[in-house]
């Protein structure tokens, strides 16, 4: 078993709060983790939705000291005892042994359970259906586009080339039917060649595609649907002149 990342300090049916064993030792935003309670036989899977570092004692105030990096830790050797890093996890599934399901667990993990990075097999298991995406669209006060992209990239890394991206994308399209902007942003960022750190240059501002007449040609998912019983009408993008 890999080394644990932290310990559950708050737990409910949807979210966990985990205190890291090591300062600044939290897993990446959007990555998958597993909470395991000794003796329960149940593993809980979730996605990291927030990472924070703050004083342990709420009465302490963090202030700037004006010391260069390295000097602060030297002159305040007790700093690691005063601060802690925590992360929040949105539960997306649970499992027992090899069986994993993307659903809310019947009971949440107990306090003081340890949390580990989820293995590729575990991530593949819990993301084998796109249902893991639904709870991620319900997390409050989190940039949803970043969360979805981070989670899907993490899941994609676990699956490798066989990742069911299209299935996830179609499911997401239904989930975000009322939030087209977020959906567009997610799908654009999941396009081949993009990723959190990609070797290919990012397609930030690709030039607009033009048709034979020199007019703007919309992306393929904006192509008009064929009209039954008639020829496709001429399409003119009303914003082509802007």
């Amino acid at each position, binding site marked *: 078993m890999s080394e644990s990342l932290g310990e559950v300090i708050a737990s409910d049916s949807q979210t966990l709060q985990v205190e890291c064993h090591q300062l600044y030792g939290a897993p990446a935003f959007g990555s998958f983790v597993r909470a395991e309670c000794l003796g329960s036989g149940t593993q809980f899977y979730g996605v990291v939705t927030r990472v924070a570092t703050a004083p342990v*004692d709420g*009465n*302490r105030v963090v202030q700037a*000291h004006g010391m260069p990096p390295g000097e602060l830790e*030297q*002159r*305040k*050797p*007790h700093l690691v*005892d005063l601060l802690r890093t925590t992360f929040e996890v949105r539960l997306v599934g649970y499992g027992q042994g090899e069986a994993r399901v993307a659903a809310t667990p019947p009971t949440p993990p107990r306090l003081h359970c340890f949390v580990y990075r989820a293995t590729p097999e575990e991530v593949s298991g819990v993301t084998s259906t796109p249902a893991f995406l639904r709870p991620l669209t319900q997390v409050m006060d989190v940039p949803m586009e970043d969360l979805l992209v981070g989670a899907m990239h993490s899941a994609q890394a676990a699956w490798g080339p066989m990742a069911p991206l299209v299935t996830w994308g179609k499911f997401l399209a239904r989930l975000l039917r009322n939030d087209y902007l977020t959906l567009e942003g997610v799908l654009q960022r999941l396009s081949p060649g993009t990723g959190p750190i990609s070797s290919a240059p990012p397609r930030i501002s690709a030039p607009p595609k033009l048709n034979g007449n020199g007019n703007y040609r919309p992306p393929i998912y904006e192509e008009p649907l064929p009209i039954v019983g008639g020829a496709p009408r001429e399409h003119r993008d009303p914003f082509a002149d802007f």
Partner: protein
Amino acid sequence: MLDLEAVLDAMHGLADEVRGSREETLRRRERGRAQIEVAGALDCLRGAVQKFGEDMALPAAQRDMRRTYPPPAVGHYTVIATDGSQVAPDYHHVAPWYLINAGCAVFRYGPPPGRSRSRLSSEPILKPPQRNAQTTRDEEGTADARAVAVSVSGRLEVERLRAELEYAARLLDEEGDPGRTVLLLDGPLIQWRMISDLRGPEKGELVRLFKELVYRSRELRIPIAGFISRSRAVEWVTLLRFSLCDDLPTTGRLCPACQRGLLRFNTEPPADAHHAPLAGLRDIELANQLLDRSQRGWRTEVIELQSKMWDQEITEGAGAAGFFYLQAGAEIARVELPQWVWEDQAQMDLLHSAIWDQCDVGHGYPMALSEAHEAAVVRGADRDAFYLLIERILRDSDFAETNLSAKARSKRRPLA
């Protein structure tokens, strides 16, 4: 609830009073600065104070009080600090148990092999009330005696100080690193005021603990010092007022009027008294004249304290105590230390550099002392949890009367 509006006018009046006395204070400070030069050149001053025989400051032997010293370069060192706090007994709760909490902070800069870089810990001590507590003569035989019989023996401050001193003595052995450790106490080196107010066995016990701490630190060659923020002391000024006597340069002693009035009239002497010009000045105002704000970490020369209590009770004539003032950045701080520290240049340099380094990183107050305080402090939530735990334990032990008083209930849940 505090009605601040009701005292607003009085506050404005206070500010006017402070503004009015400012010019007089500035004149006094300049006079004090000038007198340091005069007193520093008076060879007979130390002998004259010794002949006077009263408890007061005197120039340390072969030391020039006009001198100031920059902070030595900081090397590797270990600093230990302790502090104490308490949860006072509350007779409105189910049982008037109380708690003493001693906290410590240990920091090592360039730790020796096998030693940790820091330690923050506290030692709570639960104290139940003693049933055979001594009652006063007036209370014996009265109905109140039964209530007093379950009261706390001794004052809470004494018990807290006792816990701090015992903890500090243990830490000297547990955490002290030879040749590089400094022990800081919050407040005076010896709590003279508290000790002189005490009577009976408590006084003897506190003096014994202080003595053991001072002797143990001397044996281990660990400089020990008390750090006082915003000191109100006037000992150095009193020494300068002593030096103002016209008879001193010629006779080597005070005139009869100064002998009678020097220590009696500290703030409002007779207008024609020799020592009148500096009355009302405080030591830190004097130190401010010598230590510019830009001289961060600099200190004044050590001034010795002539003290019968120190000689008789602590060192039995084997050394004096003294003090110096330090430009701590945010303010002038007073540091009290024993003679065996300032007479050993290596220990003095270690103490000076360590205290300044701690003040520098602690924004004007030694970080070790503030962290020891944080380790010791008992906050409201902790106090409430303590009382709830007592109630639960006693209830689990089938103690029938686990009711709060009506007053405690009203505080816990004030009604609208």
